[in-house]
């Protein structure tokens, strides 16, 4: 370094390349980091602009939440009863959780606590791969394979129903729940396990008495994120549920989901029409519910981190 450059680098009032590079990077990462706020705000504003117009004019809360008559295309008497759609989504998601919660928690416990070495690494990769399978592929499996399986096994006329969509959605949500639940188990210090083992606890006792209580928040968050995922999923429920407006009496009834309704109908509506705006109202509902679920999961996860940092409950 020549003496001149050295003197400049030590000059209090001279801003060199490094100073500007630092400033540029700061701005860049700030934009990247805060863009999430922009997007979430933007999306909500967009949905709200279209949907709220409907909410304040045609919208009838009694009809929307109380009627199953979703007849947006009726020329004489269009009605927008979303009850069947809400029940459809809820029943599919509910069944999916019944399938995926025990499945994925068991998988997480096996991968995190029992499997060792190569088995464990292989399983982790496979589960992550499973999580990456496009939902249309799952939908296809529901549509072609599960459909005929259900017809054969249960001797019912149609296999595209709550059972089909629930199982497929459950299998689809399981890998993500497994991954998050396994992370939660991994966050439990090994010292806890060793201490409990040294007391003479069996492996299952260690897991039940020490590891699961310690990982409880993370496990709940995993389940909630799985619920959120199931709730917002579209393609599987469109392809496997039968897509017919119906209050189901049993898991063998076809139903229609909120998401699938939007996906199937939006392309055929006139922009700005009541129907178009009613679909956006469904969007608001979906947005609010998934937002609430994810927020709850996030708050619970933060709870864990804080506990980890301060050693407090």
């Amino acid at each position, binding site marked *: 370094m020549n003496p001149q450059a050295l003197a400049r680098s030590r000059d209090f009032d001279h801003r060199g390349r490094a100073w500007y590079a630092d400033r540029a990077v700061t701005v860049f990462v700030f934009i990247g980091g805060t863009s999430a706020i922009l997007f979430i705000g933007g999306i909500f504003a967009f949905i709200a602009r279209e949907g709220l117009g409907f909410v304040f004019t045609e919208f009838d809360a009694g009809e929307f939440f109380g009627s199953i008559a979703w007849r947006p295309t009726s020329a004489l008497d269009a009605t927008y009863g979303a009850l069947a759609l809400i029940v459809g989504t809820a029943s599919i998601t509910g069944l999916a959780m019944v399938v995926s919660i025990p499945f994925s928690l068991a998988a997480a416990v096996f991968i995190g606590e029992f499997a060792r070495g190569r088995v464990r690494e292989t399983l982790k990769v496979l589960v992550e791969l499973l999580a990456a399978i496009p939902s249309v592929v799952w939908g296809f499996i529901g549509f072609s394979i599960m459909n005929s399986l259900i017809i054969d096994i249960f001797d019912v006329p149609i296999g595209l129903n709550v059972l089909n969509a629930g199982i497929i959605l459950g299998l689809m949500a399981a890998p993500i729940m497994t991954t998050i639940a396994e992370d939660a188990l991994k966050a439990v210090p090994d010292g806890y396990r060793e201490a409990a083992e040294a007391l003479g606890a069996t492996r299952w006792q260690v897991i039940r008495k020490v590891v699961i*209580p310690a990982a409880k928040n993370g496990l709940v968050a995993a389940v909630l994120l799985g619920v959120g995922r199931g709730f917002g999923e579209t393609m599987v429920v469109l392809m496997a549920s039968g897509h017919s407006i119906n209050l189901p009496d049993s898991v063998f009834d076809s139903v229609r989901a909120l998401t699938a309704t939007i996906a199937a109908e939006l392309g055929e509506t006139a922009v700005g029409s009541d129907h178009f705006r009613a679909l956006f109202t469904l969007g608001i509902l979906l947005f609010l519910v998934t937002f609430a679920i994810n927020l709850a999961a996030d708050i619970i996860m933060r709870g864990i981190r804080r506990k980890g940092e301060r050693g407090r409950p």
Partner: protein
Amino acid sequence: MVAGGAPNGGGASAEALSAKVVVQNLTIRYGNHVALRGLDLSIRRNEILGVIGPAGSGKTSFLRALNRMDEFIPGMEVEGRITFDGRDIRRVRNVYALRSRIGVVFPLPVGLPLTVYENVALAPRLRGVRKGSELDEIVERCLRRAALWEEVKDRLDSLGSLLSGGQQQRLTIARALSQEPDLLLLDEFSIAVDPVTTMRIEDVLKDLKNEMSIVLVTNLVQQARRLADRTAFFLTGEHVETSDTARIFSGIVKDPRTHDYIEGRFG
């Protein structure tokens, strides 16, 4: 042969009969690294056996082998024979029963994410104690014996991890005692404990010796001198010697390295 009995030596077979634990030709490897080489050692009934030696001498590996904790450490291989009350520990059918008779106190206190009460009640619960009054009694007795009861009796329901470091270490000792162990393994228990608490725990250990065998792994040579009936010196995986503590510290050693170590000339 009991505590403070004949000095080093004596008939090996007689010792084998009366000892709590007999270790024969114990070698521990982690992959290519040999942590402990050909250890022959016995732990007598009702004695405190001090184990000293610099870091990396195989002390902790030795403790791990005693209650078969090696099974959870990938790559740790144990060869040789260890008997506990004459039973080969590799051949017991229920390893959990073996571990339940061996209490372990780790270098840093591991307060399980449970309340003070539940930390101490866990081991009794695991072995099937259900009755509340019985559990209460065990918890109080163990906490008293670990010199902790007076400090925590009003907050048994708060989390163990909220106690101070010294209190947590006494909690882990209470937890180990709740197993009603025959053998208590302490691995540098005083690392995170203040000197006053250390002295209190040491008094507790002197008392406990009447009921169980204790292995005290320590970095503090003076701690071994204060507590141990016999002292074993390990050096980079080699068992240099084991002898009566009084003899070792009065300079009667078989190997000059032992003398150098306790005099602080290396390590």
